[in-house]
């Protein structure tokens, strides 16, 4: 037997005996922010629920930088101290290389397309923030992202460390080169239950 919402008229299953059982989803959308016509210097997800096991941030991004590609900066809980580190493996179309940052004021997630690239080219990212509520270990991030621009671009596998045992309750995203995120850039945060 279906039940009908008085608010919007949609039908859904009821939980009455005899109906198929309902399994709550384990992958849930928490919030999304899409950049409007004026651009945005940063994006913040605050009051992140602590009811999940992992977070996943999926992003589609371009910045206003004209001097070259950009880098996505990630900070947690408004911590701008030198408490971050990262490693990366990347390919630029001609060689595979590695790099790292230590005692940095943000995690660097590579690499964002910018106004140095052809119009319409955005970069894609899938960023996992693992065990973000655990207060017994530092918080780690992994990312796969980058972009191709038909003759340039990079694909990057990133890991990141926040040397702090606090649970992550907010995420601050910005251009490492202090540029703006372009219109149509989009950041979607999801929670994954254990």
């Amino acid at each position, binding site marked *: 037997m279906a039940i009908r919402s008085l608010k919007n008229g949609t039908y859904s299953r009821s939980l009455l005996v005899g109906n198929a059982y309902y399994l*709550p*989803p384990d*992958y*849930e*959308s*928490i*919030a*999304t922010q899409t950049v409007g016509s004026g651009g945005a210097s940063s994006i913040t997800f605050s009051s992140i629920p602590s009811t999940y096991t992992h977070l996943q941030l*999926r*992003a*589609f991004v*371009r910045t206003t930088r004209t001097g070259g590609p950009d880098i996505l900066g990630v900070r947690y809980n408004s911590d701008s101290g030198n408490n971050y580190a990262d490693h990366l*493996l*990347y*390919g*630029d*179309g*001609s*060689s*595979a*290389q590695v790099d790292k940052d230590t005692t940095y004021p943000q995690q660097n997630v590579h690499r964002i397309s910018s106004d140095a690239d052809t119009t*319409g*080219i*955005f*970069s*894609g*990212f*899938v960023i996992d923030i693992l065990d973000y509520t655990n207060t017994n270990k530092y918080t780690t991030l992994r990312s*796969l*992202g*980058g*972009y*191709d*621009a*038909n*003759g340039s*671009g*990079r*694909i990057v*596998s990133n890991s990141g460390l926040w040397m702090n045992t606090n649970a992550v309750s907010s995420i601050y995203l910005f251009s490492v080169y202090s540029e703006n995120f372009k219109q*149509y850039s*989009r950041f*979607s945060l*999801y929670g994954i239950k254990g």
Partner: protein
Amino acid sequence: MPVTYESIATTTATTASPAITFTSIPQTFTDLILIVSVRANSTPTSFGTGIRFNSDTGTNYSRTVTYGSGSSAVSFRDTNQTRFFVSSGPTAASTFNLIRLNIPDYSNTTTYKQVIARNDDISDVTSMSASLWRSTNAITSITVTPFDDNSTGFAVGSSFTLYGIKAA
């Protein structure tokens, strides 16, 4: 809480298949994820898994790839292609490529489409790639095509599953 990660369609090859196409893709999601498990129907000296959107056979595709072969890490790129490849081929018997493609903002009509992919082939390489489709059209169909020098298609048991992810 609404379901945010949904299976759109899945198919498994029961005969050797020259291509698999997902059509009439709903425009109600934010991102698409395509998970492919494939191998060639024969043992060609070269094999790859190609992707086209909306049956576009123009030279509108490109990619940047990094892979590790067990002895070295390499990066290369292709430009102005008629499709983009997301895998090389498995050579060991019974092994299949496992490919995961992330396709963000597939329905927008303002930007070009970018695909971030991982390919794992235990008998050959592990790789990651960024691929570009230079079109602002919304993606309404995806065709997965084999490239191999024997043109024998995907082997029986190759599987293709398309998921949609909704954002809040």
